[in-house]
């Protein structure tokens, strides 16, 4: 499995994957797996569920390779489909995100400066309403600004800003209370 490092390489891998090259598709998966998996993991706090969502997303990608216009569209498509699948699945199954206490946590590549605070912040994020949690994840995991987030979650930009503002306000208040 080859690693993709440049946008041109992604473009080439997309072309090859569209022609049925399994290795090229595997390279695309490897390139984007951390993004897709992490969006679902931060939403559900559940590694198994995040992997299941990730598999569904990439299977859907495989069936829709023909509609992907290029590397930027691919990244946008993956973020959009992942966030939609997460919210839909949670609403359908009426499941709540699993609290961090019962989840085996996954190590980040970079160790947090304060693991206890990091855990506390993640606990508070897990308690946010579903849409706020997804928007916050897109903002801080993917480093997207509200005008980009609104295209992913298909909401007006002011609604996204309002969700973001309320989420940050809630986190500040609850962190201040501790």
């Amino acid at each position, binding site marked *: *499995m080859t690693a993709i490092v440049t946008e041109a390489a992604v473009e080439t891998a997309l072309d090859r994957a569209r022609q049925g090259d*399994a290795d090229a*598709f*595997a390279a695309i*998966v*490897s390139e984007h*797996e*951390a*993004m897709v*998996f*992490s969006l679902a*993991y*931060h939403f559900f706090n559940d*590694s198994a569920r*995040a*992997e299941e969502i*990730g*598999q*569904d997303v*990439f*299977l859907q990608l*495989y069936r829709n390779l023909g509609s992907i216009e290029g590397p930027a569209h691919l990244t946008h498509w993956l973020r959009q489909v992942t966030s939609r699948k997460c919210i839909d699945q949670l609403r359908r199954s009426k499941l709540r995100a699993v609290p961090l206490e019962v989840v085996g946590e*996954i*190590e*980040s*590549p*970079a160790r*947090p*400066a*304060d693991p206890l*605070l*990091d855990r506390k*912040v*993640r606990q508070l*994020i897990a308690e946010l309403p579903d849409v706020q949690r997804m928007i*916050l*994840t897109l*903002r*801080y*995991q993917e*480093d997207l600004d509200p005008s980009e987030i609104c295209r992913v979650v298909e909401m007006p930009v002011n609604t996204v800003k309002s969700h973001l503002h309320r989420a*940050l306000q809630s*986190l*500040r208040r609850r*962190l201040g209370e501790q």
Partner: protein
Amino acid sequence: MDLESQLKSALARKQPPPGFASRVVAAVNRGPRTEERGRFRWRAIAAAAMLTVILGGWTAHEIAERREGERARNEVLLALRIAGAKVRYAQTQVHDIGSKR
């Protein structure tokens, strides 16, 4: 550390369990997941059941209509036979009266 930095740290990307990409490719090669295949099977069964009900209903309706037509035809033939017998009887009576005169 400010809240923004804390959030970036807490929501940093994480690597999926090892072998994730291989499992995805294997799933792609396997085709639709079992539950999707199951959903398709149930849809096919439901469609077949609906088709059976529609065809069955249509056939039953056809049979009932044919029976109704035959019954009506038999009634008309019986009525004609009775009417014919009565006409014949009347003709005989008229003939008898004529020959007596």
